[in-house]
């Protein structure tokens, strides 16, 4: 049995335990009284607040019951916010009116053109936030580990994200931001070349803030190679080597970068590629457990790496999204505790959510503002720890400033202007509809776990292209539902009006800038042409010897471009063979 089978067993065993405790609470007066006493203490500990219209409210919504069975079900089956099994929230307090020093959960993703263009966008976004939270999108060549002067990629330079070839580009990208400030945090959507890109980030930070800054750097890098193979297709090296390099990076980060999350286990791209909400959750969680297996096999302690894992899910408009975050937190907590022996800090699934890009369409594109607003509401009802809201113009362009601003404001309106989240935590948690849905979703996720377990585990299932096949099937079904009208999409297959092409200035990278990037890269390579070969030699040797390559990457990025590093590693370990 793979660890996934053990997780499924653990969740079912835990559900059985909760049921038994509920029965005991009803049958055993002593236990019932004990629960009532505890419940009264919890109620007494909840503070109060007054809404602007004068209504007195508790800071935390709890079920209005005094029945011991219901109390047991709530405390054990869902858990208070911040308590096992965390269905109601990862932390005790979230979203409430911010006090001094609190950070908003809004994170906006940006990346366009050259490093200085994205830097300008970062400064623009920072003007709308109290804390520095920089989330970076990279262009295609960077995501595939290619230099901007690689044959045939010039048209892709700076398109859809920022072009980063060297440590100098990285320094330009974050210029003017205090990356060692306690409330600063950087996020990089970067996978196959993640180890090299993180090394560039560390090297650039050291140049600016001194060699001792590394432990202060805070943020996350996606580095989720399993979902790349399953859905997003940005893979450079064979799967085993890709995972090995990823583990090298994680192994280095755990002791050296205590504020860094070296992996963000992502369902977003799985869902965008077509997975249903249940498939998204099941594949993402199963990937998370597969990483836990890998890190343990490296000799890392689950209580040291567990707290450094974070998750990233898509939130679309299907009903399952009402509870997806809740169900995931619960399964992760039980699985980590009971199948992996993890302590409390390693049981908490920390969740970043992004609204669905796939749900946005070009026709009547301003309707996308509404779609995103609804998805944001669902995300926060799920207790997400941070959130990115998409811009309405995304179906046709890298977001323009106008729509980025609207997307950012949507979150502020929801969290600051409306009273839904800021007065009382968990206003809707525990509603019968949510709980019924959550149980169904959990069952369906465990069914997928069993199927993957039967195939031998996540890696073996992947070899048999199980996840890819399932995702493609779902994508195809979705398309057919859209075109048959079974899945209504307003403005497309319902209430469609012939709409003129949207008039939005497109964010495109000019050929002049693309050539400038190539010139800068060539100058860097020329300047370092004498030192690069030795660094590459050492890096290649480390990769061939199957040693940890991260230390070598840290010195290689000082004198080598991303493309040079990729070529060197490809030479050592080979190329990824794509799957259909």
């Amino acid at each position, binding site marked *: 049995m793979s660890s996934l089978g053990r997780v499924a067993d653990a969740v079912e065993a835990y559900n059985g335990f909760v049921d038994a405790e509920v029965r005991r609470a009803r049958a055993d007066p002593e236990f019932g009284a004990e629960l009532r006493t505890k419940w009264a203490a919890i109620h007494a500990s909840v503070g109060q607040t007054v809404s602007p219209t004068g209504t007195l409210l508790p800071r935390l919504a709890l079920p209005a019951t005094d029945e011991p069975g219901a109390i047991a079900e709530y405390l054990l089956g869902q858990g208070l916010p911040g308590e096992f099994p965390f269905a109601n929230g990862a932390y005790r307090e979230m979203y409430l009116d911010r006090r001094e020093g609190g950070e908003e959960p809004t994170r906006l993703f940006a990346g366009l053109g050259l490093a200085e263009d994205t830097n300008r966008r970062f400064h623009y976004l920072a003007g709308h936030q109290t804390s520095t939270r920089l989330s970076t999108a990279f*262009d*295609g*060549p960077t*995501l*595939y580990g*290619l230099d901007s002067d690689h*044959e*045939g*990629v*010039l*048209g*892709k*330079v700076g*398109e*859809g994200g920022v072009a980063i070839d060297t440590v100098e580009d990285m320094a330009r990208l974050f210029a003017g931001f205090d990356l060692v400030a306690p409330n600063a945090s950087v996020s990089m959507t970067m996978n196959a070349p993640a180890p090299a890109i993180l090394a560039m980030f560390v090297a650039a930070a050291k140049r600016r803030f001194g060699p001792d800054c590394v432990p202060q750097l805070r943020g996350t890098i996606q580095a989720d190679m399993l979902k790349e193979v399953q859905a*997003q*297709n*940005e893979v450079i090296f*064979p799967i085993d*080597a890709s995972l090995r390099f990823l583990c090298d990076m994680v192994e280095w980060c755990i002791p050296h970068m205590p504020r860094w999350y070296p992996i963000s286990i992502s369902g977003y791209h799985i869902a*965008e*590629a*077509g997975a249903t909400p249940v498939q998204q959750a099941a594949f993402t969680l199963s990937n998370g457990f597969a990483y836990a297996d890998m890190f343990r096999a490296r000799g890392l302690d689950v209580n040291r790496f567990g707290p450094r894992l974070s998750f990233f899910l898509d939130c679309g408009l299907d009903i399952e999204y009402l509870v997806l975050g809740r169900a995931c937190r619960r399964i992760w907590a039980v699985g980590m505790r009971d199948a992996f022996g993890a302590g409390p800090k390693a049981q908490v699934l920390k969740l970043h959510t992004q609204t669905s890009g796939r749900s946005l*369409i*070009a*026709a009547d594109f301003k309707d996308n503002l509404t779609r995103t607003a609804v998805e944001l509401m669902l995300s926060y009802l799920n207790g997400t720890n941070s959130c990115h809201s998409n811009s309405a113009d995304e*179906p*046709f*362009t*890298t977001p323009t400033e106008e729509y980025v601003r609207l997307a950012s404001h949507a979150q502020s309106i929801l969290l600051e202007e409306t009273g839904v989240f800021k007065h009382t935590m968990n206003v809707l948690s525990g509603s019968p509809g949510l709980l019924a849905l959550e149980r169904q979703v959990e069952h369906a996720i465990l069914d997928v776990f069993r199927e993957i377990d039967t195939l031998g585990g996540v890696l073996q299932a992947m070899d048999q292209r199980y996840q890819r096949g399932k*995702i*493609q099937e779902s*994508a*195809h079904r979705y*398309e*057919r539902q859209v*075109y048959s009208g079974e899945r209504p999409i307003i403005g*497309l297959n319902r209430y469609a009006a012939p709409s003129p*092409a949207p008039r939005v200035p*497109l964010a*495109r990278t000019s050929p002049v800038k693309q050539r400038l990037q190539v010139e800068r890269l060539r100058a860097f390579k020329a300047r370092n042409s004498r030192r690069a070969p030795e660094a590459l030699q050492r890096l290649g040797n480390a990769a061939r010897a199957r040693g940890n390559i991260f230390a070598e990457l840290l010195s290689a990025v000082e004198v080598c471009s991303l493309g040079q590093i990729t070529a060197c590693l490809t030479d050592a*370990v*080979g*190329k990824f*063979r*794509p*799957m*259909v």
Partner: protein
Amino acid sequence: MVVASPKAGARRHTQPSPLRLLTAVPVCDGHDSAVTTINLELARNGAEVVYLGYHCAASAIARAAVQEDVHAVGLSSYNGGHAIFFAEVLAQLRARGAGDIPLFGGGGATITPADERVMKRGGVDRIFFAGTPLAEIVAAVKGAYSRELGPGARLRGDRALGRAITLAEGGARGARAAGRARGADRAGRAFVLGVAGPGGAGKSTLIDELTSRFLRRVSAGRVAILANDPSHPDSGGAILGDRVSAIYAQDDRVFFRSMATRGSPTGLSAAAPEAIACLRASGEFDLVLVESVGIGQEGDPFGVFGRGPRMADAVLFVLAPHYGGRIQLQKIAMLNGSDLVALNKCDQPAAKAAMVEVAARLALNGRDQLLHGTAAARHHDPGVDRLYAEIARLAGLEAVAPGAR
């Protein structure tokens, strides 16, 4: 372009040739959700779709279009830079004498009407915008691009060879004449290796790894690959996806052709003998690798038992450790008929016992069959090196010391 039907008498089939398309996603773009959906829909409607995958270079797309001799090329682009990329594909097609192959594409809403005007001026045939129903895309593509491909007397090089195979697939005998563009003096020296085995044994990966060794160790010659895949029994369409994982076939020294079986029950296209004859006649190739579809226990795609035409100079049978035990092994006909046997995925735990069982099975034949343990998915696998050396010896290929490049 010359468009003429082959003579009716020269045709085996009365069906017109199916629409053949090449689809791909541009370089640095991994968005394959739309293209896989469209592939499926086109195949369900009878088209043969050669899929090249995502993150494809313009040169690889043009090379594939020529070798596969498709009616049209479709690109699905979601990462921007489409105007430049489509133009580059057109330039590469023209450079390969294939400027007549129409190029169409889509990219949701990332390709705007203004972009479309620019792209069309540059020679792109058609752009499908966001929201176009799948059925409409299929109907438009079938309507615009279905046509009989004629002999094309002016075609040269791989373009001529690709067309010769198309004519063979359409039932024309003597198509090889069209393929004899160059090197007639060298005609016939190609060594043809048939590769058979059950589905999932790793034939495609192994062939690709053999290709990489050929490219490294033979300094000048070319290798050809005929990859057979089943047609869908109901629609007649097919998704031919072997090129996706053939990473070493992205080289002008490799001629790669995907063939749908079009109802042939043998495990190979009925046109395979003619296609092989075309490849031999061209005089271009030192080695021809012919991959059968996944075969069953009785399968004999290359006619080694004399029930059909013998098509290969030697046959390699590939199997994986999970063949189902000793008794199942007894029943596999190709273990009697093959010249070489590869037990692939030999890095799996079950492989040790399997090696012993397969060796014992082969010993019963009393023939000089060589068994190799290979792990084709492993980088620089020494088992594949040994298998390649054996094939090179049989084929009389130039031998360069392993490790030399």
